[in-house]
């Protein structure tokens, strides 16, 4: 698993991962039951074909422009930067996308692929509900049957999104096994897929799962980083000094980071959820405090006990409440190309209020973790440095959770 420093050099300056079998160094791969292997091979074949097909890409671009509303702007958060004192904070406004988060970049792409593969039924897992809403949205538009698996616990804390999915015509199935959160919803979606393999396409919402999902979801999300690169050059005349994004499974972070990997002067910070504090064990920070193992089809950093049983995670934000992480992040951590840090519930909540108050932007609790770290980082840097934060989603879905936490009745 060890890499020499010369490997790391070549990896960063000539980055071309995963390899043909879906590996990012020792991470990634295809760890699923034989019952899924043929479908995964079929998916890989279709994906490899269509991602190079000009007609497919033109349709994707048109949808991203006309339906999602891309490109999303970059906003210089001047008051936040001034109040913080230090580097300039810029926000990539993925919260302004249709459905309110970056998730739709991926569901549009995968749904177009599903249609070309002749699948008539879409399934998905969801944690905070953003991916479920984004999936139900594209399924409604394309006239596909849609079933979304969601942990019973998450259904309780994200009821507005559950209602949204139902309005969009999706069937939301409450998952009551295990810890009743995102990881269990993923298990249940995999069980559905294996049972209904002939007509069903599984839209995984993050850069995890068996190959080709980590690469495919990344490729659909790199629109974030590609736009950001051009927009920052135009706005500031140079690349940003640092990128900051929250990491649950890690799709918004990889989407921002990936087009900058070979720009070695651009620092990258992935922000995990420290929950009640990494030292308490009640967190969702596998990169900061876990170790490598195999879950949900790939090898990656995980939160597990000494026997390898996955342990329950905690975060104020349902979207970060996941014990694994995309395998490419594990690799970027090991080769030192990205730094992974953690922000706890209280810090995220404070950032939520601060951004809302001084910029008039209500961030999702997930994205609030990134904002919190960006503020910390900005304080350590001079005013001529630029930090770009991926504001991956808006916080409308979270206001009920926050009101409840603060004892306010709505």
């Amino acid at each position, binding site marked *: 698993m060890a890499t020499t420093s010369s490997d790391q050099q070549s990896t960063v300056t000539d980055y071309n991962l995963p390899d043909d079998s879906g590996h990012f160094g020792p991470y990634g791969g295809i760890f699923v*039951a034989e019952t899924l292997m043929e479908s995964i091979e079929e998916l890989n074949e279709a994906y490899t074909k269509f991602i190079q097909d000009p007609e497919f890409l033109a349709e994707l671009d048109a949808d991203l422009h006309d339906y999602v509303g891309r490109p999303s702007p970059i906003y210089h958060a001047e008051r936040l930067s001034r109040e913080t004192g230090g580097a300039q904070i810029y926000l990539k406004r993925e919260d302004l996308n249709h459905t309110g988060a970056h998730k739709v970049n991926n569901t549009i792409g995968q749904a177009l692929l599903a249609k070309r593969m002749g699948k008539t039924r879409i399934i998905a897992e969801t944690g905070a509900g953003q991916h479920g809403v984004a999936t139900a949205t594209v399924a409604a538009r394309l006239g596909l049957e849609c079933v979304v698996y969601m942990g019973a616990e998450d259904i309780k804390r994200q009821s507005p999104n559950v209602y949204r999915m139902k309005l969009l015509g999706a069937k939301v199935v409450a998952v009551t096994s295990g810890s009743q959160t995102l990881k269990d919803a993923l298990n249940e979606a995999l069980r559905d897929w294996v049972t209904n393999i002939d007509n069903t396409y599984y839209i995984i919402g993050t850069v995890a799962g068996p190959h080709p999902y980590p690469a495919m979801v990344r490729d659909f999300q790199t629109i974030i980083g590609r736009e950001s690169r051009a927009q920052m050059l135009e706005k500031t005349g140079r690349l940003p000094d640092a990128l900051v994004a929250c990491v649950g499974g890690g799709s918004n972070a990889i989407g921002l980071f990936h087009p900058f990997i070979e720009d070695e002067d651009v620092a990258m910070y992935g922000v995990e959820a420290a929950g009640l504090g990494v030292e308490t064990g009640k967190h969702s920070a596998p990169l900061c405090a876990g170790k*490598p193992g195999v879950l949900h089809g790939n090898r990656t950093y995980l939160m597990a006990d000494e026997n390898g049983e996955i342990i329950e995670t905690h975060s104020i934000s349902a979207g970060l409440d996941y014990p694994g992480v995309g395998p490419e992040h594990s690799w970027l951590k090991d080769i030192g190309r990205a730094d992974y840090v953690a922000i706890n519930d209280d810090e995220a909540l404070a950032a939520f209020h601060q951004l809302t108050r001084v910029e008039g932007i209500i961030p999702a609790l997930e994205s609030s973790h990134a904002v919190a770290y960006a503020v910390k980082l900005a304080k350590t840097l001079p005013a001529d440095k630029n930090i770009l934060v991926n504001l991956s989603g808006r916080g409308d879905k979270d206001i009920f959770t926050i009101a409840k936490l603060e004892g306010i009745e709505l």
Partner: protein
Amino acid sequence: MSRLDACFKALAEQNQKALVPFVTAGDPNADFTLACMHNMVKAGANIIELGVPFSDPMADGPVIQKASERALEQGMSLKGVIEVVRQFREEDQVTPVILMGYLNPIEFMGYEAFAERAAEAGVDGVLTVDIPPEESAALLRAYDKYALAPIFLLSPTSNESRIKKVAAVAQGYIYYVSIKGVTGTGDLELSEVTDKLAEIKRHTSLPLAVGFGVKNANIAANIAKISDAVVVGSALINCITDNADDENKGQEAIAGLLAEMRTAMDAVTK
């Protein structure tokens, strides 16, 4: 000769097919499992598949999921399962025991350490649900060193190239998953299973076991006609949960169902 090879050879001489029960180790507790293993052998079982409970059993239906949760609540672990096998071997040195589970507990113990401990305790083979041949090279080296048989799955969706990949690395037997779905759900189609087994036989001389949809003695007999081994799992675990308040009754129910299956299978093969 390995216990597995000896088992299939002896059965063939008697015109019998292997009856392979699956129970989750530690459900409802380790003592129950140990007693159950001996009882199952007395009832006519030939090979025992012992489930290693895992927190995220992605290929299992609700019955085995719940069994895993109960076992984990009782503190069962991969280490604990190996210990159950060690105790079983104190009295039974003949019946092959296969561990069936997921990769992460083995990753955390370490491939080499796991293979050494399992073999030393008397485990004969390991079926790891979520590791296809493509990812298994390092694990297979460890199994080879300690003479553990890697058992692999094939399914209705396995095309010829997948069958060849599995046949190239499998040992002991190949486990054919008879339905598209998870354990303990759906109804198997006998004619489809027959055709697929014939296709698989063209690529391997290993015995073929069939499982995932075997609910009663009638299905077991039908499967015995066309395969080398019949695997029954969820139906046995239902015997435990149906008698949750009385462990003896649970043991009796399991032995009773297996004895019925044994009689029905022998009736069609002998």
